[in-house]
């Protein structure tokens, strides 16, 4: 192996190493901090401590964990199911059905991606207030179920769906909804897996909109609770880290279970 190649490899490994460190460090810091007291954390201690059990105990003493996780799970599952169902139908429809106005309508849908959420917050809040949905989980889910990004993602993925499969299914006697359900969904399962992960994570981690809409403790989700622990007058960072770890676990679980399909889905679903 010559020197220039060795140097090239070294630069590559250095770059990858820095990227890996930046990715892993926050998670490692969170895990280490969860075993330390608040004082140790503020003192910059970066080694495992003895306070893990005490932090866990304090967290469950301060937080109605089953209720909070139930709220988060309910919101994330509802949002995922509705968003995937509606946005994948829209993506399929935009790609499969020809019409003169199709691309114009699609462009308008994509244009909504340019509108920042900050500009929508107040009108959305007023809509929810008029509909009597403030402090309900439906209010969190509704604004996102026709997601322009997920529609875009499904339409682009549907371009790889063989049109002849749809024709064959029509000859086999399937109606359009049956083609969607029995042919399209199974064939595009990797696309669905990737979309499920994206939507579930976004919904589980959603903070700003739930903060505005949810007002009572009975409806609050884990992100709001962890945030309120961190912003207390005298925050216990060990407890905050326990909350953060617990909040991270479901998304990690979903990601690792569906990792293979996620990668396939991002690369192109149909083989």
């Amino acid at each position, binding site marked *: 192996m010559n020197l220039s190649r060795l140097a090239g490899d070294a630069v590559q490994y250095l770059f990858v190493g820095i990227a890996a460190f930046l990715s892993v460090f926050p998670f490692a810091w969170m895990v280490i901090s969860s075993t330390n007291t608040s004082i140790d954390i503020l003192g910059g201690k970066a080694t495992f401590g003895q306070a893990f059990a005490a932090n866990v105990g304090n967290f469950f003493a301060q937080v109605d964990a089953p209720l909070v996780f139930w709220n988060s799970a309910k919101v994330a599952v509802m949002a995922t199911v509705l968003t995937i169902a509606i946005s994948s139908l829209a993506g399929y429809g935009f790609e499969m059905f020809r019409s003169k106005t199709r691309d114009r309508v699609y462009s308008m849908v994509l244009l909504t991606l340019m509108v920042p959420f900050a500009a929508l917050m107040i009108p959305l809040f007023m809509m929810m207030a008029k509909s009597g949905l403030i402090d309900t989980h439906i209010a969190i889910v509704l604004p996102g179920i026709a997601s322009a990004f997920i529609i875009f993602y499904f339409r682009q993925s549907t371009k790889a769906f*063989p049109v*002849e*499969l749809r*024709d*064959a*299914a*029509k*000859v*086999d*006697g*399937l109606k359009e909804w*049956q083609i969607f359900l029995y*042919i399209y969904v*199974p*064939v595009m*399962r990797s696309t669905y897996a990737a979309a499920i992960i994206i939507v579930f994570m976004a919904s589980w981690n959603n903070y700003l909109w739930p903060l505005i809409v949810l007002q009572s403790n009975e409806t609050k989700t884990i992100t709001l609770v962890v945030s309120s622990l961190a912003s207390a007058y005298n925050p216990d960072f060990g407890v905050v880290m326990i909350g953060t770890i617990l909040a991270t676990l479901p998304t990690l679980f979903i990601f690792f279970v569906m990792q293979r399909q996620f990668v396939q889905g991002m690369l192109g679903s*149909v*083989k």
Partner: protein
Amino acid sequence: MAAVELTDLRKSFGTLDIIKGVDLAIDPGEFVVFVGPSGCGKSTLLRMIAGLEDITSGELRIGGEVMNGVDPSQRGIAMVFQSYALYPHMTVRENMGFALKFAGIARAEIDRRVDDAAGTLGLGALMDRKPKALSGGQRQRVAIGRAIVRDPKVFLFDEPLSNLDAELRVHMRVEIAKLHKRLQSTIIYVTHDQVEAMTLADKIVVLRSGIVEQVGRPLDLYDDPANMFVAGFIGSPKMNFLPARIEAAEAGRVTVALASQPGVRLDLPAAAGTAKAGDAVSLGIRPEHFVAAGTGDADLAVEVDVAEHLGSTSYVYADVAPGERVIIQQEESRHATARGRLVVGLPAERCFLFDDAGRRIR
């Protein structure tokens, strides 16, 4: 098996006319091949028969019943697609039985029909595999099996062999011919490969730009093409066309002279009133119909450019004049050199004559 009748069938996309009034009668049990160059509308016509494209106007009858607007699954057809269109998430058995399951047929009957078709096509050992675990030829057989189990009145094949390699294509061509012999069903088959058309068809329909140019038995089209397009399309290598001029025309006979070699004259029969002296025409002769110099009705001198020797036969690519190329097929002519002058004979009885609009006048 059922008859298929197309009456003034038309298809337009907006202002663009794709199929411009097709009239065709297909007898029960007949193997009909739609052939034509890319974009001629042959696949669109097949899809209209299948119900996958709407019919803009005209009438389609299958088994005597009007089928315009009828759902594809209710037309009594089964279709084999170019890309096979097997459902990738289902096994071979599930693929073959899927349509029957949706038609509400009992499980035992589905299994019986699927096993019968699998036996016929030699798919028995592959029934639990998914399409990605099959070769191209096996996928094609599964696609045909999926069509067979439906017991359709009419089979529709849309360029089914074009994704296969040359050897497998020949093998599957024979398999499809055998299948037709066994099932005796009506088959409509689309291809751009005129060898497939010639070897499989009872009847060939030659299409160009959404219009039927000629309908007939394969050898009738070869021997008796209606126009220059059909003459050029049917036969491989294609017919040579040499620019010529009518020197004299009288009582159903004409004398033509080649434009590039006026000394080459032929006396040919011609339909009365179709040509007059001075008209520009095209003289058509197939590569395999040239004869040895001195044994035809006129001799033609050409400059050989390239000679391809295939063993039993050779193809000589030559120029009659600059830019005026011909292909000459010669049996046992390995001596033909890559370059040089060659003189061949033109037998009048093998020559065709077309007017400047491409209509045949002899």
